[in-house]
């Protein structure tokens, strides 16, 4: 499960076909400036917003170097080995609470934020809920797969995930047998994991389910049970064969619609809801040329003209966990992982418990008056002394003690370095002055809360 195939090719600069327009490399000067604003945009989208020290480094690396560095991450990543450490804590438990808390702790610390981001991305793509799986270790293994393979070739990732015990149980693979098919896994494999709606028919689902017969779980491991397998000829999406599940997957990965489907999802996530349609064709082509290698495709995408178009800056609404991670990583602080998990759940994103097989609703669906109140609750409680989050180090240590207005300026630079609308800044500074006589910890907590509730703080 730990194998990171494909990593050997990661270092090379991606060579590009000349026919592309949207995905042509961004050339500073010709296509705009690769300045601080451009780097901040990149860090917000591909990391979670990073400490200011990263900005300098990215500026030096240039657009392609920066994209490559984000995909490769900084080694050694101490957090990387630690999922295995979870084993004794989760073995035999049905609740995902410990795993989730553990994962939140690493989210604040990791030196490879894009990998954590992709873990979240794949958790949504392959949405599996502990409410049905009821085995925290299996869910841990699935997360480990997301982390280990999430930036490599998609075929390796997808195969490992669908053959993991968590997914097999989630989609009832063990009850899919010759003569008694259960279409659950077959359907989601086509609809949600590889091809997307509209790229297959009901007959394909039935035939895919036949190919997947015999996949089961024995002693917590994937097992192919030949006696339950239907060895006949199947026809899926225009091709025939005496397929088993593996052969079916190979066939699906080779289809053009698979690359297009993945390209669309990556664009949605990294470019935002209004990505241009032609860009999908181009990104799908990149993916196909590189054996659906996600990391390599991301290197191209994150260094492209498309990605750096100014109209896409701030065009996404941050999801709850992404929002929390942005705050903590920008401050360079940690907080109680259990409290973060509970709070993300109240905001609508409960880790390990997606609302259904299709994952979380994206974009604007994150927001309602009720969920805004929960965001407000997080914002106003985060820095509060004696509050549930136990911010570490506390705000009064993080923020240099140079008077209320300077404190306000410091927090703005840390969180929203490209600045605020002038009116917002005035309101916050006036507030800081009015509260100058309050104890510092209280004053800072309130100020941080207000800053996190500026509308711009929810976009990236």
């Amino acid at each position, binding site marked *: 499960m730990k194998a990171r195939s494909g990593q050997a090719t990661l270092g090379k600069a991606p060579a590009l076909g000349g026919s592309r327009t949207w995905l042509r490399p961004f050339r500073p000067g010709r296509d705009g400036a690769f300045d601080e604003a451009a780097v901040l945009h990149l860090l917000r989208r591909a990391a979670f917003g990073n400490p200011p020290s990263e900005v300098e480094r990215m500026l030096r690396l240039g657009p392609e170097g920066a994209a490559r560095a984000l995909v490769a991450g900084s080694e050694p990543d101490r957090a990387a080995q630690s999922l295995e450490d979870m084993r004794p804590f989760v073995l035999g438990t049905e609740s995902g609470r410990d795993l989730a808390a553990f994962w939140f702790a690493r989210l604040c610390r990791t030196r490879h934020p894009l990998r954590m981001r992709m873990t979240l991305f794949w958790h949504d793509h392959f949405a599996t809920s502990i409410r049905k799986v009821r085995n925290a270790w299996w869910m841990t293994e699935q997360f480990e797969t997301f982390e280990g393979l999430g930036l490599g070739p998609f075929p390796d990732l997808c195969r490992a995930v669908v053959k993991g015990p968590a997914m097999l149980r989630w989609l009832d693979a063990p009850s899919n047998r010759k003569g008694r098919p259960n279409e659950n896994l077959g359907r989601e494999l086509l609809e949600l994991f590889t091809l997307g709606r509209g790229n297959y028919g009901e007959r394909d689902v039935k035939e895919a389910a036949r190919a997947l017969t015999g996949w089961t779980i024995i002693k917590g491991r994937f097992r192919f049970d030949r006696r339950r397998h239907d060895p006949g000829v199947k026809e899926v999406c225009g091709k025939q064969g005496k397929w088993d599940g593996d052969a079916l997957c190979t066939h699906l990965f080779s289809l053009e619609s698979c690359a297009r489907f993945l390209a669309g999802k990556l664009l949605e996530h990294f470019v935002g809801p209004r990505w241009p349609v032609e860009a999908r064709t181009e990104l799908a082509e990149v993916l196909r040329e590189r054996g659906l290698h996600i990391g390599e495709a991301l290197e191209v995408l994150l260094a492209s003209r498309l990605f750096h178009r100014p109209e896409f800056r701030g065009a996404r609404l941050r999801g709850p966990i992404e929002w929390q991670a942005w705050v903590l990583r920008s401050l360079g602080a940690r907080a109680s992982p259990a409290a973060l998990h509970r709070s993300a759940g109240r905001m609508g994103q409960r880790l390990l418990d997606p609302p259904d097989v299709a994952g979380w609703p994206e974009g604007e669906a994150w927001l309602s*008056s009720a969920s805004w109140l929960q965001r*407000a609750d997080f914002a106003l409680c985060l820095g509060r002394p004696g509050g549930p989050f136990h911010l570490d180090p506390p705000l009064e240590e993080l923020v240099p003690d140079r008077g209320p207005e300077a404190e306000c300026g410091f927090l703005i630079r840390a969180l929203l370095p490209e600045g605020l609308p002038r009116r917002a800044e005035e309101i916050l500074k006036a*507030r800081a002055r009015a509260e100058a006589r309050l104890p510092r910890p209280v004053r800072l907590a309130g100020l941080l809360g207000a800053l996190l509730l500026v*509308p711009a703080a929810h976009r990236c």
Partner: protein
Amino acid sequence: MSSSSTRKSSPRISRRGLLGRGGALLAGMPLLRFGSGSLEGERLFVLVELVGGNDGLNMIVPFEDPAYHAARPRLRVRGGGLALGEGFCLHPRMEALLPLWKEGEMAVLHGVGYPRPDRSHFRSRDVWHSGRPDLETPSQGWLGRAAAAMPKDGSMVRAMGLGEVDLSLVLRSPRLAVPALPDLESYMLHTDGRARRRRDARLRELAALQETARDDAIGRLLARCAREALEGSERLREAAASWRPKAGFPTHAFGRRCALASRALTSSLVTRIVHLRHHGFDTHASQNRTHGTLLGDLATGLSALAADLRARGLWKRCLVLCFSEFGRRLAENRSGGTDHGKAGPVLALGGSLKGGFHGRATSLTALDDGDPSFTTDFRRVFAEVCERWLSVPSRPVFRGSFPPLNFLPRS
């Protein structure tokens, strides 16, 4: 998801409600969706879940049936003074509900369950909550779907789960944000100012900051949600502060939840639909000790809620329904308890329902693998609530049509 409904200003909305403190505070901001309409004439609904599998046979006791006494030598309830008629009596600890029964404000719906019953708590709960036994892993609840289909009213949130942190499946709907609140205070903004003047200043700042949102779809959405939340939370604070009980609510956990329900339902404009849980019904052992207490708490809590709503003139507009994920086996086990069974009675209370027995009582001799089997599909009960109480077509909610039991008046 769509922001098309956001700027609609319905003619029912007036400035009246904005004259309160919350309104004055945020004066000058555009009118909000829930405005100041009133809930006058709207119906209230409380769904009580008896978590763990209530032993319905010891709640509505078939005390004239020899099969009952034979199967439960230790656990059987003797007739006592709470006879209901037709061979049934009420558990003696539930005396508090007897006046409601006599007034015709309590209905017993016999033998409610679902086809191909499952004895797993989780599976059975999924079925009762979703109203969709055909789905393997349902992700939406029938009440959430029904609430989402209800026409807009003046309430701040259409429905809420009270006394709980996790939103129950029954209230989930992708089209409606339903909060689960351990108490009403958690729907309030926790500004750091205790002192009123300071809090007002903080809220004004937060409101003013929202005006800096970019003028595009996301910016408008952010500003609207924030304004709704800020005003709603202030309004709730006022409502919650002025609420006084009109009956003596018991101090046990369920009694406190009932008081909370009354607070949410009767503070103007908060909500119309509440889901409450009453925990602890999984009585595998020493049932006599625990079950009586649970039923006693249920009865005293609900009778206080009824008295409170009656004193406010709202009892006629209220319906309370108590269900459990399954009943228990007919025969007691060797630990002085009962194991997971199938069907059970649903209890309905309200000022305008048709009291008495409804449906056919389950037979204690023709058992289904040791369990009294169901005589009434649970979807008939919930579909009737949708159609006749919430005025929502039940067919899309349950993907089928289920004939009413007629325990509710035709609306």
